[in-house]
């Protein structure tokens, strides 16, 4: 092996230093929020809480887990993620399987029909008016049905199905299996990795989406956790900006609002983040694979 030059050594050392800094900058906000969420609200107000809780308490989490509105929002998010992911993956995979069959009548037309939607869309307002027009407004299904078929996922599924060995399906056909039986009994069991990857992406989308509920849902008991969190954080910024503008008159009022404000909102944020962080280490590999499947098609 050739000895690294002096310049190369400097380069390697700077790379390590830079990557450590990057890791720190990425990780710090999580850690700091976690720390603040375990710190008592009144103590947080004094400032200076960074790497370690100064006045450790579980109080914030106790309040969060007693808040009915929040628990309900968490439940709605779970329901939306489970039902939305299941239905979306099912309908998308069925469509993809049908389109992977050469004998399907109208296959070319259907493909173009799907692909065009990747280049043209009606945009926000017409979609909003449609959802309102068909009576989905303020219903749980407004968060699930409009994004049920994801064309991008369909293409990935289809590419995968086309690469499956044909022999198994053909022998099943000879044994008298219909297309649906073949799909559920043979194709799906063979598609574990791709189903896992696409389900994960879909689930992350459903868990993280706060925008659609914010325009489609008005009932408080149907709001998912991310949308609720957005409302909570928003009201906090408003108070802090008010105090900035008119410190004297509003200081008292905003202080009252902030007594438990920041620590409590950090606890809420952690509750909304932790499901993703818990799942993440186990599925990281699938995520990476999914990106590579997707970008190969590009």
């Amino acid at each position, binding site marked *: 092996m050739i000895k690294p030059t002096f310049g190369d050594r400097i*380069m390697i050392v700077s790379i390590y230093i830079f990557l450590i800094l990057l890791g720190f900058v990425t990780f710090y906000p999580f850690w700091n929020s976690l720390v603040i969420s375990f710190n008592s609200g009144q103590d947080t107000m004094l400032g200076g809480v960074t790497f370690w809780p100064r006045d450790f308490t579980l109080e914030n989490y106790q309040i969060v887990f007693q808040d009915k509105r929040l628990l309900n929002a968490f439940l709605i998010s779970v329901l939306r993620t489970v039902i939305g992911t299941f239905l979306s993956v099912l309908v998308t995979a069925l469509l993809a399987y049908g389109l992977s069959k050469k004998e399907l009548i109208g296959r070319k037309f259907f493909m173009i029909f799907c692909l065009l939607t990747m280049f043209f869309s009606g*945009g926000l*307002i017409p979609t909003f008016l449609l959802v309102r027009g068909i009576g989905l407004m303020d219903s749980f299904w407004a968060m699930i049905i409009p994004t049920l078929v994801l064309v991008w996922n369909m293409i990935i599924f289809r590419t995968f199905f086309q690469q499956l060995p044909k022999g198994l399906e053909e022998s099943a056909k000879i044994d008298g299996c219909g297309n649906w039986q073949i799909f559920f009994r043979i194709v799906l069991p063979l598609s574990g990795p791709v189903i896992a990857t696409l389900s994960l992406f879909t689930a992350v989308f459903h868990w993280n989406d706060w925008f659609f509920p914010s325009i489609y849902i008005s009932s408080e008991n149907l709001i998912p956790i991310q949308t609720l969190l*957005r409302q909570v954080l928003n009201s906090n910024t408003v108070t802090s*900006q008010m105090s900035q503008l008119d410190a004297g008159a509003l200081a008292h009022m905003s202080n009252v609002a902030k007594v438990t404000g920041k620590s409590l909102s950090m606890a809420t944020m952690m509750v909304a983040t932790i499901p993703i962080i818990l799942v993440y280490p186990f599925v990281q590999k699938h995520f990476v694979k999914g990106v590579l499947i997707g970008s190969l098609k590009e």
Partner: protein
Amino acid sequence: MKSEVITKGIKVNKKKSFFKRYFGQFDLQMMVIPGLIFIFIFNYIPMYGVLMAFQNYDIFEGMMGSEWVGLEHFKMFFSDPRFLEILRNTFVISGLKILICFPAPIMLALMLNEVKNMAFKRTVQTITYLPHFLSWVIVAGFAMSILSTDNGSLNIALEKTGLIDESINFLAIPEYFWTIIVSTNLWKSIGFASIVYIAAIAGVDPQLYEAAALDGASRFKQIFLITIPSIMPIIIIFFILEVGNLLNAGFEDLLILGDSAILRSVSDVIDTYVYRVGIGSGRYSYATAIGLFKAIISVGLLTLANYIARRNGNSLW
């Protein structure tokens, strides 16, 4: 005799063929029908709905009964007092994102490629991929927390090092907004966006490096002479996509972080303006016209970028 029967048989078969064939594979057709119906309803009906950009859309009359006004809403947008400001914000924010958030993952991938300690490499990857999976609400929440005057870590750090005397409310000062938006986007996307480049670098022929090393090229030189040229086609393809998205300056990030009235003059881009005008004020036709204007320019930009790339031998289609 025999051949006649056969040809007749074929003829009969051909006449009925479509329906026979269709119902012969009815179960297969039933698989695609639900998906196609959903695509039709939620993608194609809104495309037709875009026509309301040329109407004075009336929610009680619907598209059929509303009055046609031609290009009036487009003219209104061009003479909107906020038109130039919104266009500027769109291009500046998007341009800054391309300038900083596009090359950063490439540099990260190049750096990770030089790291020979696998455990360290994997740790950095695991940490930097994670923010991609957080919602903008959470990311913005982190940003608000770090930047706030209320126990915000940045203020604490600046005060401790003596750089400032009094806490700064960074999120209430328009001058800081673009920096904040680009930084949070960088924070969220750098790791995950590097995956594709890491994979591309892994595919570079190791013999090239060996040959270069024999010729006396340092690792540093090898990066510029071998690695970067090898992954150039992928960089160009992603760059084309990026330019095609020039008018997508961001949406959720700007809506959450730039929501306060003080920041509107620097945070409102075309997409967020469509949202505020359309959903917020209920001016559906006007908002749709603005959205359509953006869509048309976007298609033009993508075509142009692709044309330039094709002349250099790389192209999307």
